[in-house]
């Protein structure tokens, strides 16, 4: 039925210009129906129905397990660094080259000059009189074997020699070598980020029979270099609700190749299978069937790097090969090659890419020729060849500028006229019969471009339900696999079904497995994150019991598979299969189970792989325990991958308070004992700030709990638990990986550090000799003492310890005794620049005005305080200013008594306390909202000025509580554990509060600008403190700590202006809240 062309296509505009220059975001096809097309119903009256091009409903497939499972046990592999090399590091590489391959680097000249130098130093066989003695240079050279400190070892002598001979010694001029190396490193970076050589993928599965698609041959590259072509008979075993696995116990064949395998292309015609394998400069074709062993038919060597190989699905033994020269050749195996098309340049515009691709099409003599700019259908029967455009990067296919063709694939199995074209943004289905206009377009939303794909043909409306065709796209660097579904293309136009679905990635599997020890975690993570190199799929289609097994190859040579099942409508009610499985396999879990015990019957026998003794493993390797298994819950609750903002909440808090403490210690400006105590109090205040936060978080808790319950109740239902077989497989896999990597580490130990023998340095010469004697005598003394039942005291020892010569400390300078100005100044300057500066100010009389002002203000305040004491209603006004009315008097050490006076006056407001508590209770709800402000602080900046900012942010968010709720969900998870021990600290801290009857200590740092702008204060902070012990007053304490924070910063003169601003900001920010409360009052 493939010959039918859709009777009606979806309407669209057509223009063949360059792509739209306006860049669009990625999700541009999300959520839209794109177009609809009418279908006249059979009945006469208004039975029109409409179909859209993007249909939201598709088949839903779910994973049987939440991690991919390794198919084979790990082998030795070369794990590429995840980070690409920096091309600027070429000097480092040159250095390595000179050290490691000195004979290649300097061979010629050293041979010539060697006679003139004598490196043997003191040897007698000096064969020339005038040779230069190089003994000391020799020492230097020996040191090259070690990593030495560049600072302490100067290579002056070597430098001189270098100056003398550096321009003659090198075999390759360093400039040339450097530029070449730079180029090579740049290339390597590109290859790592975009490994275009691997396009197409080096993994394939060929079912032996059309009817039985579960049994077949898996083709994959083995060996660390990926140069061992392996044919492995595998079978998919799957039962719905039971265990599923891929059986790899059957025989395998392998062939050693002369280059790493880049692409495997295969096609089967009836019972015969033909396999084309591409490495960079070689292409080979094998043939096999279920009964016949694989047989190499022919190998060709290409002059240029070959970029593509494709085996014909029409005629066995016809292969298309493309190379970077731009030529595509039709290779009829056994008969030779025929050049069918050559293009020097790119097809539609200059993309500066030598990459070429070729595919067969529905017609055996029409082939698709593609490069980064588009694809053409070429009829190779006519000469000169002519092509017509199938696809090009243009506005006809709604491309973006910068979009490039990444992969093209003939979808012969699904529809004989369809081609899949992928770019880094989208995937297109093209119909050969209607070129230029894409039948379908998706945004695949993958992070890195898809470079391999597999198609799972749907069934064209057989029986009741039409199965969709699935397109699996695999990207290399990010290991993503995305499944797209579509239907149609025959009698009806193509329409996409459902939403693109991302499948599991090996690199994310460790999250779902039991925890590993850090260094093992690192090894495993590195191994699992190596880029993907291929993708294939085993399909089981037998009635209702469908399943898909998606296999993915990584460049480390590992293969992972994941099994998908169509979701049943009643899936929620039935028990996940893995859970039952766990019961069934409980005894099996204790037995060692080889993930792949494959007897390899290779053409060239492989070395027996190191057998891991299972007995040693149990204590050696971290495996899953029962405990962990039961603990395993939801695979991806937010708790497991906390977003950075939540991280910062955790991490930022502690250092900050520590920072506060340090600052608090710096505040001390003179030796006033009272102040000293004050700073102690300050630190306790900061801690109380901590607690305050905690209390506040507790206050938010109900919301959190609610939310968490929601989250959990939802997520627990859907995903699946890991079955014990999977866990065991993973356990063994990780065990073997550790064995391999530990072996490797021993071998590749890097050059040791250059060490100096220090034993002799730190030993007293005679001590060593008398040590034993000394100990012996001590023992003797001890014994005698014990027999006498007396204490061993110093006097009793026969050989008393020599008391070390005590160097007498110089006697304490009594600063009080030296009263002249010079000494005062010196004393002040010992206390820091601040004190020194203030001394000078005092001395020069620069602060007389300020003092007078301060005195006047103080008096005014006292008066007002008395007035306010009479008027209770105005009490609340003090909220605004209570924390800020004090002046920053840190310069005036002699005026510090004032503040205590103020606080006394404040104490007279004692009666107002009850009113206050009323107000506070009204404020509770406000406080609750204000508390999560810590969640919002994204940028933990340790500068004091940042904190008020943070606070303000928190306030701003109060208007949108929904955000808070969701963000606080995971946060709550992390807090629960903390809270437990903090609660115990709570009691201790509250006892600390009791000591804070004199809060003036931190008040005294405030600057006086505040006072002029703020309304006259009445109550002081102390009264609030009393209240705070009864009410959850989280933010008040937080406020206090904030204020204190900025104030303490102001001890540094350069902070004065900043801190005053910031504190001003904070007090401003707190105003609206307080006003609100006053209104309520």
């Amino acid at each position: 039925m493939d010959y039918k062309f859709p009777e009606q296509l979806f309407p669209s505009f057509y223009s063949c210009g360059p792509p739209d220059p306006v860049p669009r975001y990625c999700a541009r096809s999300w959520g839209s129906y794109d177009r609809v097309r009418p279908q006249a119903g059979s009945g006469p009256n208004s039975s029109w129905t409409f179909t859209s091009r993007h249909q939201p409903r598709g088949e839903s497939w779910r994973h049987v397990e939440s991690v991919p499972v390794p198919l084979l046990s790990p082998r030795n592999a070369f794990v590429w660094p995840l980070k690409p090399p920096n091309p600027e590091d070429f000097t480092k590489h040159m250095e390595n080259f000179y050290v490691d391959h000195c004979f290649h680097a300097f061979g010629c000249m050293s041979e010539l000059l060697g006679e003139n130098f004598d490196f043997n130093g003191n040897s007698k066989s000096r064969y020339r009189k005038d040779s230069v003695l190089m003994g000391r240079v020799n020492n230097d050279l020996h040191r090259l074997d070690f990593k030495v400190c560049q600072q302490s070892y100067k290579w002056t002598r070597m430098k001189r020699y270098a100056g003398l001979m550096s321009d003659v010694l090198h075999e390759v001029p360093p400039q040339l070598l450097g530029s070449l190396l730079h180029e090579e490193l740049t290339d390597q970076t590109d290859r790592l980020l975009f490994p275009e050589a691997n396009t197409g993928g080096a993994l394939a599965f060929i079912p032996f029979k059309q009817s039985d698609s579960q049994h077949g041959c898996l083709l994959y590259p083995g060996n660390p270099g990926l140069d061992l072509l392996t044919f492995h008979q595998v079978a998919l075993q799957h039962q719905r609700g039971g265990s599923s696995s891929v059986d790899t116990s059957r025989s395998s064949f392998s062939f050693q190749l002369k280059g790493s395998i880049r692409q495997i292309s295969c096609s089967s015609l009836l019972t015969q299978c033909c396999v084309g394998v591409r490495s960079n400069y070689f292409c080979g074709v094998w043939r096999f069937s279920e009964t016949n062993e694989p047989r190499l038919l022919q190998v060709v060597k290409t002059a240029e790097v070959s970029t593509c190989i494709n085996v014909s699905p029409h005629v066995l033994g016809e292969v298309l090969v493309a190379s970077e020269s731009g030529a595509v050749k039709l290779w009829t195996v056994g008969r030779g090659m025929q050049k069918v098309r050559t293009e020097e340049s790119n097809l539609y515009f200059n993309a500066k890419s030598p990459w070429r691709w070729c595919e067969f099409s529905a017609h055996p003599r029409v082939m698709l020729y593609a490069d980064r700019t588009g694809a053409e259908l070429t009829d190779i029967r006519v000469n000169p060849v002519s092509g017509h455009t199938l696809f090009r990067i243009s506005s006809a296919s709604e491309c973006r500028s910068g979009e490039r063709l990444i992969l093209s694939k003939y979808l012969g199995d699904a529809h004989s006229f369809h081609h899949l074209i992928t770019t880094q943004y989208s995937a297109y289905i093209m119909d050969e019969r209607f070129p230029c206009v894409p039948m379908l377009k998706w945004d695949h939303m993958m992070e890195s471009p898809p470079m391999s794909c597999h198609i799972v043909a749907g069934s064209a409306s057989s029986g009741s339900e039409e199965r969709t065709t699935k397109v699996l796209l695999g990207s290399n660097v990010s290991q993503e696999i995305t499944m797209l579904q579509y239907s149609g293309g025959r009698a009806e136009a193509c329409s996409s079904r459902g939403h693109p679905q991302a499948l599991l990635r090996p690199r994310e599997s460790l999250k779902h497995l039991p925890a590993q020890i850090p260094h093992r975690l690192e090894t495993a993570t590195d191994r699992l994150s190596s880029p993907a190199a291929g993708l294939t799929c085993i399909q089981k289609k037998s009635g209702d019991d469908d399943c898909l097994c998606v296999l993915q190859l990584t460049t480390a040579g590992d293969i992972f598979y994941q099994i998908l099942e169509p979701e049943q409508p009643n899936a929620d009610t039935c028990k996940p299969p893995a859970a039952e499985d766990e019961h069934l396999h409980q005894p099996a879990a204790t037995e060692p189970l080889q993930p792949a015990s494959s007897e390899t019957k290779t053409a060239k026998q492989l070395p027996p792989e190191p057998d891991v003794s299972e007995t040693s493993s149990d204590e050696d390797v971290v495996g899953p325990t029962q405990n962990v298994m039961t603990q395993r819950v939801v695979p991806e609750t937010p708790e497991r991958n906390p977003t950075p903002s939540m991280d910062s909440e955790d991490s930022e808090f502690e250092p900050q308070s520590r920072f506060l403490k340090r600052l608090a210690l710096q505040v001390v400006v003179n030796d006033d004992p009272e102040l000293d105590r004050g700073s102690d109090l300050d630190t306790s205040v900061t801690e109380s700030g901590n607690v305050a936060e905690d209390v506040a978080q507790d206050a938010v808790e109900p919301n959190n709990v609610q939310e968490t319950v929601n989250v959990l109740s939802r997520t627990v239902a859907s995903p699946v638990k890991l079955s014990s077989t999977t866990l065991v497989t993973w356990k063994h896999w990780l065990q073997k990986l550790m064995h391999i990597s530990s072996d490797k580490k021993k071998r590749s130990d890097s050059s040791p550090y250059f060490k100096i023998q220090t034993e002799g340095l730190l030993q007293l010469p005679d001590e060593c000799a008398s040590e034993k004697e000394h100990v012996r005598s001590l023992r003797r003394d001890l014994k005698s003492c014990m027999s006498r039942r007396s204490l061993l005291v110093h006097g009793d020892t026969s050989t008393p310890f020599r008391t070390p010569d005590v160097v007498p400390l110089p006697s304490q300078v009594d600063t009080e005794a030296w009263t002249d100005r010079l000494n005062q100044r010196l004393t002040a300057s010992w206390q820091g620049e601040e004190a020194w500066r203030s001394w000078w100010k005092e001395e020069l009389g620069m602060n007389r005005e300020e003092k007078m002002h301060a005195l006047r203000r103080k008096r005014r305040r006292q008066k007002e305080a008395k007035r306010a004491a009479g008027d209770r209603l105005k009490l609340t006004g003090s909220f605004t200013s209570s924390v800020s009315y004090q002046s920053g008097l840190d310069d005036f050490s002699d005026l510090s008594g004032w503040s205590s006076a103020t606080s006394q006056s404040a104490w007279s407001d004692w009666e107002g306390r009850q009113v206050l508590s009323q107000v506070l209770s009204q404020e509770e709800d406000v406080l609750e909202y204000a508390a999560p402000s810590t969640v919002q602080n994204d940028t933990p900046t340790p500068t004091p000025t940042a904190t008020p900012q943070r606070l303000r942010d928190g306030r701003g968010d109060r208007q949108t509580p929904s955000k808070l709720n969701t963000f606080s969900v995971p946060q709550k998870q992390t807090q629960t554990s903390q809270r437990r021990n903090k609660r115990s600290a709570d009691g201790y801290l509250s006892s600390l509060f009791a000591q804070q009857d004199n809060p003036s200590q931190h008040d005294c740092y405030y600057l006086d600008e505040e006072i002029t702008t703020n309304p006259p204060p009445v109550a002081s902070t102390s009264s609030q403190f009393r209240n705070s012990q009864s009410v959850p007053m989280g933010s008040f304490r937080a406020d206090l700590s904030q204020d204190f924070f900025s104030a303490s910063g102001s001890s540094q003169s350069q902070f004065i202006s900043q801190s005053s601003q910031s504190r001003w900001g904070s007090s401003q920010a707190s105003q609206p809240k307080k006003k609100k409360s006053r209104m309520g009052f």
Partner: protein
Amino acid sequence: MDDLDRELGPHGPVEDYNDFSDDNVSKGGTNLKRPNVNPAMCKETPRETGFHRSTRICLEQIREAVLHHKWQEAAEYMACYPQLLEDTCLPPAQQNKELLWRISTNILHHHPNSTMEDYNNIYERMKHSGVRHHLMICLEHSFHLLLHGQNEDAKWQLSSAESWRHGKESAAQHQRAELISAYRSLLDYVIWCDKRFSNSDNYFDSDNQGMHDHFRQASLNLKEILKKPGVWDPFILSYVDMLELYDDHEEALKVLNDYAYNNNFPPNPNAHVYLYQYLKRHDASEKNLMRVLKILHVLVPSHELMLDYSTLLLNSENKTDIQKALGIILDMLDFTCWRTNMDVWKCLKTVIQRLEIQEDWENVVCEKMALREDWWPALHFTSFHASKDLEENPELWKVKASLAKVLCPKQALKYTADRVTNGKRT
């Protein structure tokens, strides 16, 4: 300023079609081999505020959830994401709004608990949130209504969108406006059809004025959009259907011809099919029909109608026509999908039989097969094919076996039953 700016904001005109996108350059990638990778929705930038960062992270989470089909989770994240709109320092708010709309409808499409009310809410709100995407959302809204059988509401939506005007229109907006009127006309046509069926006795009564009104309204816009290059299969079908009833054959032919042969239009096989069907309905001459099919043969040699074409050619008395028919059938058999089709092989057999009357028929066949002789045997006449055909369709095997000798007289073919039984035994 922000990554979203760069990603979503209006770029300056791209100076060179050949160049790579800015993203690639900004990454410091000096190598031009590598296409711009990482087309992620959201990228980190060196200078972003905490707010931008949290929206970016939120967007990433939404993307993850959506791609893993965790719709509930996505919906919960989505509840916070609209905060993005409150940001004043993101200039391309339009793009953000569109993205917001796309993600939210996407989630609604798949969320189990989404209701029509939610949809209407989102569509209506987002529609009025910006000028540039107004028409697009209107169109999508009407599609949504159409898919849910609310044709009248959809029509109302479309007509209100049609009357929406906003100053200067961009090219894309203009196209959308045209699409909207075309779809509105399509709905007019649907009503027109209903009315036609309801009183099929006499269309041209005065009672049927409403029906004619609908025709008039529909034809105007449909005619307009058919002038624009594009794929307009549903529109042209309805337009031609209406014209046929009013006997405006001239216009219908003109429209169909234009749709098929205008070079600005994409090479749509359906255009030729519609023309052919129209001509056939109106009893055009065989010559005309063959002319249409000849062009279709060049475009799509594998088309179903090629069977009709070969029958037409066989009916003519011309000698060369039979040779042409042979070529056409052989072309069809080149394609995978026809390889086991009984009709085509039978047709081939008739053609050969007709040819055999001629004198130098063997030369003619050789000439046609010359290009195919190296791969046709492998494509059709191997022992594997013989065994498969025998198993599945013995009649086909008979036809093929009889033709094998004729088509490839010089080669020893293995397409025999004898061989197959041997093969089966081994």
